[in-house]
């Protein structure tokens, strides 16, 4: 029983934290994350060089990581720095490309020379692969895609978009090159895309991809949980500092018992969130994977929303302002619950597993 992380992981975490602290101020983040291409190409190159994307897949596929723990270490720092670079798309894309034997493409992703995004879900289909309806048809020897994919994280400007679609009674995985999509910033920063496919040409890279997609989704959920932990940790620290420094009625807010007790409850939620993420990381690849990942996403959906709302409230007006970094952490924490199934979706999945 050992809850410390390895030296390699500690070094990766330290170098990332140093990088973000030196080179990624909130002003840069807010500038890059809200207008096309919804990220900073310079930061992206730096992150690739730091090995962030390489940590997402194993050595056989051009990376140097690929375990759930690798992913958790990276994303906790991503969350702590509130980095809105399209890493979730890169994670999912690199995994799926590697698993589909697209080694060259995977290497391009790891090198940072190409960006990937993944289009699985659809309007009204947020968590259940069985409910998707996009189709792939062979027309004149070429695959063409029909249907509507939405909420494609990092989609705008992505070079390689991996798309899940029905073909031959199975769910296959298709690769499209820089398809046009409706692009927008996310309210919490970063790009998101919406892809209406009416005969989009694509290559089939896997004919029966359900299992690898489910596995990749669970890994991405672990990434989101780790990201939330980093963001919660930072937001609670900011809230603590604010309460210590802010004076009302002649004394620091930190001396008001009602506020103290609420902060304690936030810390408790954070500890639970860290613990359930540790559980999910350890279960990745085991029989308990789906169950423990769903638990983690459910618990962190609740904890993140609560911590976000309480942090804003405890800050008062300042927590409502764009200029204050805490407001962006708060937004991110709420919006993480919207990604890849929210607390209710995962509670429902858990109930169905019992």
């Amino acid at each position, binding site marked *: 029983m050992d809850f410390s992380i390895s030296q390699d992981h500690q070094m990766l975490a330290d170098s990332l934290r140093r990088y973000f602290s030196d080179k990624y101020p909130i002003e840069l983040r807010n500038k890059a994350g809200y207008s096309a291409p919804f990220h900073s190409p310079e930061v992206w190159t730096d992150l690739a060089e730091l090995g962030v994307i390489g940590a997402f897949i194993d050595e056989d596929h051009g990376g140097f990581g690929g375990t759930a723990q690798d992913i958790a270490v990276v994303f906790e720092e991503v969350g702590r720095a509130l980095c809105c670079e399209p890493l979730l798309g890169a994670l999912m894309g690199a995994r799926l490309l590697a698993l589909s034997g697209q080694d060259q493409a995977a290497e391009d992703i790891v090198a940072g020379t190409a960006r990937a995004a993944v289009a699985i879900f659809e309007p009204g289909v947020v968590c*259940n692969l069985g409910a998707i309806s996009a189709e792939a048809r062979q027309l004149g020897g070429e695959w063409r895609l029909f249907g509507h994919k939405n909420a494609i994280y990092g989609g705008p400007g992505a070079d390689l978009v991996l798309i899940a679609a029905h073909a031959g009674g199975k769910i296959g995985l298709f690769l499209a090159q820089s398809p046009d999509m409706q692009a927008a910033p996310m309210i919490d920063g970063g790009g998101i895309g919406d892809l209406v496919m009416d005969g989009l040409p694509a290559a089939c890279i896997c004919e029966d991809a359900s299992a690898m997609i489910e596995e990749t989704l669970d890994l991405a959920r672990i990434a989101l949980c780790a990201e939330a932990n980093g963001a919660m940790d930072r937001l609670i620290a900011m809230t603590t500092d604010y309460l210590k420094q802010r004076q009302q009625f002649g004394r620091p807010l930190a001396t008001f018992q009602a506020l103290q007790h609420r902060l304690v409850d936030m810390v408790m939620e954070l500890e639970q969130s860290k613990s359930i993420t540790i559980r999910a990381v350890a279960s990745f690849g085991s029989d308990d994977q789906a169950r423990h990942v769903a638990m983690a996403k459910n618990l962190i959906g609740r904890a993140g929303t609560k911590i976000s709302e309480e942090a804003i409230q405890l800050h008062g*007006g300042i*927590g409502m302002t764009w200029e204050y970094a805490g407001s962006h952490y708060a937004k991110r924490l709420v919006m993480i619950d919207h990604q890849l199934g929210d607390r209710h979706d995962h509670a429902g999945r858990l109930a169905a597993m019992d």
Partner: protein
Amino acid sequence: MDLEYSAEEIAFRDEVRQFLAENLPLEIAAKVDAGGELEKQDMERWHAILNAKGWLAATWPVEYGGTGWSTVERHIFSEECALHNAPRLVPFGLSMLGPVLIKFGTEEQKREILPRILDGRDWWCQGFSEPGAGSDLASMTTRAVRDGDDYVVNGQKTWTTLGQYANKIFCLVRTGTGGKPQAGISFLNVDLDTPGVEMRPIKLIDGGHEVNEVFFTDARVPAANLVGEENAGWTIAKYLLTHERTNIAGIGFSLKDLERYRRMASAMTRDGRKLSEHPIHAAALAELEADLEALQISNLRMLANARDGAASPIDSSLLKLKGTQLRQDILALMRSARGPDAAFWDESPANTNSDLPPHADHVAPTYFNNRKLSIFGGSNESQRNIVAQTLFR
């Protein structure tokens, strides 16, 4: 026990409904219904329509151009307006400065200022909060020093809502020293084009520009702009802050939001099931509806108390607490219902030519923006302190 309106009140409600049906511009109502932001001209247009009808200043006596309505009539009017998607009236002139002048102003101030509020020549904003004085308003430090016929004002105000549209601001300023912090505060009206007054926008969490900071640097303000006695500002501020607000629970808005939610939920599916049939969402909706039904009665009970002269601070604080919590819970449910599409963001929600896909809407920015409800206008913590004081008296 009788929950119904009287025949006269029902007749009044019908009159309001008819007026709204005939006079509320459809394009404005549609914007409100969609949860979009209003532009200045939308607000001014609706202000002018109500003024033409004489229904603008609900809380003023008739002699000053007000409606002379009873508490219940004011409630009916504001509820009907919300239900018909009328824009919320900007309160600073109509519900704040107006009543203050009527109670504390000189005859000249009333004669000069009140008509300009009604006809829209003046747009007032409020200068109470400061960076270091929020819930603890009495710790404010903006200073006004008498110099001949003027005050010279230095300091900073913040959270000035819609100040970007205003040409006037009423402020609390410190004119005396020593004694309790509440002493030595005065209530001063200031032209925003006075040299030395500068307004800067504050961008909020949802990206919107709704509040501002106001900086005063040796701004010379005529002493005639003082309302009430020098150093008597705290009394005026307290009057203003506790001045009966029929809409403190925001019920009309919650009703509209629940209506929007039901519309949304019956049109959406989630992983193969209609969202309206999703048991967790349906149970959450049912409980919010029960809470809102109760809150409506709580609000009417408060109105009846106020009408009968039995209002207590517990009433309005509890309504504010529950009303804001409930509204926030409703908006959270809507946000949650929208799933991953809630992330799509359009910085200009008033822009109807948005690039957003049609299944995305403004639920997330609306949710984030309305976290303010439990902070502004007396934070919910302050409200709990007020109620506790009464409970443990």
